[in-house]
């Protein structure tokens, strides 16, 4: 049952990250493989705020802002100039991989290779339906719930969210309807980047100790969760995150925890082979 608790926490963090990732992919058409490095950079910005006397929770907005700003800048100064030349999709993937390496090892060059952690109490221990969850973990679960409800509300009920979905489905037709798609895409980078930064900080809080390369393989979990739910499907992303989070942690309890990403990778390969649009998805359907 304790691995179930771990799995639930992994799933909650992964859900926040995957919703941002899949939204970014659906609206902007960029598979941003640098997502993990922006997560860990955001976690470190929050760490330094925390180390300078800001409480861990109050330093969370620093991480969120870092994720938003870095993602926006990445689009503005790297992906957009490349896309103007109508590159093959593989070019964008390679560029993103390069950015990921630079982001991760650039960070390592600055902060060094040692493990750090936030100054933060784990809070009271609660015993809930057979699981032991700390106050910290409960807050992370609550953040996850708030994020998912907010994104649902944004996409279903707001003018911006509908314009994002329209841009994702048919950008030319969206423009013909008067939607400024460039603005919508920039805004999507900001919002999904904020989720990326948030995911980075709660990921670091959840693992307890972390270092510059801690999120390097996270992209495998993200891809697995995204493809499981169907690319561009925010609800699928939540479902995919739950399945991947639980299955990797529970199997890690029986096999070797080192194999977490391998298990996710096998799930990813299976999905790409048998259901490339996910369990629910039919192509890209934000």
């Amino acid at each position, binding site marked *: 049952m304790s691995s179930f608790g771990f799995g639930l926490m992994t799933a909650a963090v992964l859900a926040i990250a995957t919703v941002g990732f899949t939204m970014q992919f659906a609206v902007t058409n960029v598979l941003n493989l640098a997502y993990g490095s922006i997560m860990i950079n955001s976690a470190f910005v929050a760490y330094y705020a925390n180390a300078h006397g800001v409480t861990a929770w109050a330093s969370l907005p620093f991480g969120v802002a870092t994720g938003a700003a870095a993602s926006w800048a990445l689009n503005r100064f790297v992906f957009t100039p490349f896309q103007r030349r109508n590159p093959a999709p593989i070019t964008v993937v390679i560029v993103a991989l390069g950015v990921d390496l630079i982001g991760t090892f650039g960070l390592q060059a600055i902060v060094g290779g040692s493990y750090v952690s936030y100054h933060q109490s784990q809070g009271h221990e609660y015993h809930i339906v057979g699981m032991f969850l700390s106050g910290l973990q409960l807050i992370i679960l609550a953040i996850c719930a708030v994020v998912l409800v907010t994104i649902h509300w944004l996409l279903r009920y707001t003018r911006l969210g509908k314009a994002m979905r329209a841009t994702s489905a048919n950008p030319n*037709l969206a423009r013909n309807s008067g*939607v400024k798609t460039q603005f919508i895409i920039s805004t999507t980078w900001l919002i999904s980047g904020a989720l990326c930064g948030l995911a980075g900080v709660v990921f670091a809080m959840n693992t307890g100790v972390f270092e510059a390369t801690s999120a390097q393989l996270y992209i495998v979990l993200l891809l697995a969760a995204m493809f499981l739910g169907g690319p561009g499907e925010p609800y699928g992303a939540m479902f995919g995150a739950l399945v991947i989070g639980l299955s990797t942690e529970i199997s890690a309890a029986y096999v070797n925890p080192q194999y977490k990403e391998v298990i996710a990778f096998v799930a990813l390969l299976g999905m790409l082979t048998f259901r490339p649009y996910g369990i629910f998805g039919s192509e890209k359907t934000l």
Partner: protein
Amino acid sequence: MSAELSTQGLVLTATGLSAGYDRRAIVSAIDVQASPGKVVSIVGPNGSGKSTLLKSLVGVVRVLDGHVTVGDVDTTNMASEEIAKIGIGYVPQVEDVFPPLSVKENLEIGGYLLARREIPDRIEAVLEFFPRLKGMMTRKAGKLSGGERKMLAMGRVLMLSPSVLVLDEPTANLAPMVATQLLEEYIRGFADHGSTVLLVEQRAKAALRISDWTYVLGGGRIVLSGAPRDLEQNPAFVESFLGGGAAPPPSSD
């Protein structure tokens, strides 16, 4: 029909226009004009550049040479979202709806430039016009039949009461009776209420019946134009487009 769905039209003019993809012209030396109260149609064989021409008028395809004006605004290579603001409603030949969005959401995006409080009334007006859509507001546009989807595509542009309607084969894939109704009642109706209609149509006969003026496109150029009455007397036109009386099979781009 309800008059409030259309607005007094504007004159749309293309002069010496050439346009295409990747700097390669598909259509060239095009002079066309559409004016308020009139239906102007473009006919021509598959691949002659009809869709490309329309796309260049609404900012989807790049104008390489020449000019486009709407009213007294030069819209040459203006961004499509700006062209929409001027009052041009464009229904493409394919990909004319947002499949994952519901019918209601498609109409809401159609009214994206409106103030929030105006949208419900406009949706009501569009539903009066296409009552078939009433029962399917929550259905995803991707799940509609071909005819229902075309109505939604038309309904989406009507949300802004466009002064110029640019329609690319609105009757493709429609049953003959529905196609005739769409052309003769609705589309002709817009022009009769003062809008400007520019229409690409495969069914040359049906197009001629509702048009005030028709251009014939061949190999990316205007090869013939005239009032329908005169074209019907032109042996070359009759042989290529009206011969046998059967409409050519609808294309799927």
